[in-house]
């Protein structure tokens, strides 16, 4: 089985890109789709209805969504294999810019909306820098100048990035993404690792404790003076 992990900020067009990819993959493969979100998500129901493929979602609730994704990825792979799928598509919630959900073995796709401002690629840290492919959506809505600058900024973050400009609604440009997807090899579940260090200290803030001040927390804490990270607890 092959693994695609799609990340990107909310409303960038992640699901629309996923939809185009699924449409192509289904011509000769079986696909399972998994969505991680925080409070509500509808993408799994929409895609199940549209393509009749196995879909699933998980709500992260008080836990950080990328953290949830990392925790459940093993189970999700087992689920997709049990479905007899050739591809598992994991779509992230796309909120936190400090970590990235991409793993070794799979393809990391970041979806960026061209209308989000030319400096956006620079602001998104590992969500951009650790991806293999950057899909730029909504390109028909911005000026030529901004389109070129947007691309330059992505290259500034990652020189080797494969950039695919796509009008995801029409599907133009999807063939270049499919070329990369077609060249993927199968994953080895035992070898999968996160690409980046996830700054996901499982602290008491992560799990929903609302108190302020480091004195009230366990896990990775930080004081104002001597701003090093400390670990408190077992």
């Amino acid at each position: 089985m092959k693994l695609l992990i799609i990340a990107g900020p909310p409303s960038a067009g992640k699901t629309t890109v996923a939809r185009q990819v699924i449409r192509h993959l289904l011509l000769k493969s079986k696909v399972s789709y998994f969505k991680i979100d925080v409070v509500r998500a509808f993408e799994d129901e929409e895609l199940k209805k549209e393509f009749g493929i196995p879909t699933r979602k998980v709500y992260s609730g008080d836990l950080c969504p990328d953290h949830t994704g990392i925790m459940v990825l093993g189970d999700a792979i087992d689920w997709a294999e049990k479905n007899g799928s050739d591809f598992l598509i994991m779509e992230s919630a796309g909120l936190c810019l400090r970590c990235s959900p991409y793993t070794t073995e799979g393809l990391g796709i970041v979806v960026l909306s061209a209308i989000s401002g030319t400096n956006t690629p620079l602001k998104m840290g590992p969500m951009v820098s650790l991806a293999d492919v950057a899909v730029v959506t909504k390109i028909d809505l911005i000026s030529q100048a901004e389109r070129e600058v947007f691309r330059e900024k992505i290259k500034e973050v990652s020189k080797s990035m494969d950039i695919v400009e796509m009008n995801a609604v029409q599907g133009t440009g999807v063939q270049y993404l499919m070329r990369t997807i077609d060249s993927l090899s199968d994953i080895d579940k035992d070898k999968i690792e996160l690409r980046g260090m996830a700054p996901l200290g499982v602290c008491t803030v992560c799990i929903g404790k609302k108190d302020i001040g480091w004195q009230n927390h366990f896990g990775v804490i930080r004081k104002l003076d001597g701003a090093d990270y400390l670990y408190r607890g077992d």
Partner: protein
Amino acid sequence: MDPEDIDIREIRILPGTKKNGEKEGYDNIVIVPGETISIVGPTGSGKSALINDIEMFARKDTVTGRTVLVNGAHPPEEYVRDPSKKPIASITQNTKCLADLPVSEFLEMHIKARKMGDVEDVALKTIELANEFVGEKISGDVKITGLSGGQTRALMIADAVVISNSPIILLDEVENAGIYKDKVIECVKRFRKAVVFVTHDPLISLMCDKRVVMSNGAVEKVIKPNGEEKSTLKEIMQTDRRIDIVREKIRSGESIADCWQLFGQAC
């Protein structure tokens, strides 16, 4: 073909298929630098799909099944994938400048991305050219988001000509934006650019060197004016100038009661 080679001698559009599966009714449409082409036809007749084919350098991989060749061959992939290598600038009603920057800084951002020298000089030249296309002059220190629709279009066309140096410019229904279309046509000829207008404007359609007529998703025919429309065109140009006079009067709050006396000067 070398992607750096932007010496485009011609773009050739080969026919695809109609909705009923038949071949389209033309042999090929050739676009050469300095030439203007209009694409006309009712809403939903396939005008934007034709523009999309040109922009994507279709190779039977779009819904229409058309093929678009550059200098007789399939162009390199960079032409489609990298907007800074693409020899086509597309400006539509949807195209917006979103950056919250003054005009000159916006242009300088583009010029620097293109790694051109003389940043300030090129920006000034671009603004100068844009000002040929509009009545209300654009100033470099005005925020780009504060420009009118017409000023924005004018700036994008000037940007495509001066900074992108695109040999081909696609203009999708920009006539509503209030730019001097005859100035745009004159300019593209001066700079040896090819321009494709998708348009409902009779004057633009008639002023173009070729007129591609669309119907039901396919090219119906290609009309090359042979001079017999000349007298009609002359009349329409005169009417257009008269409307310009009236428009300016109305915009400045004046009465148009005496406009008819000025109509003689518009001949």
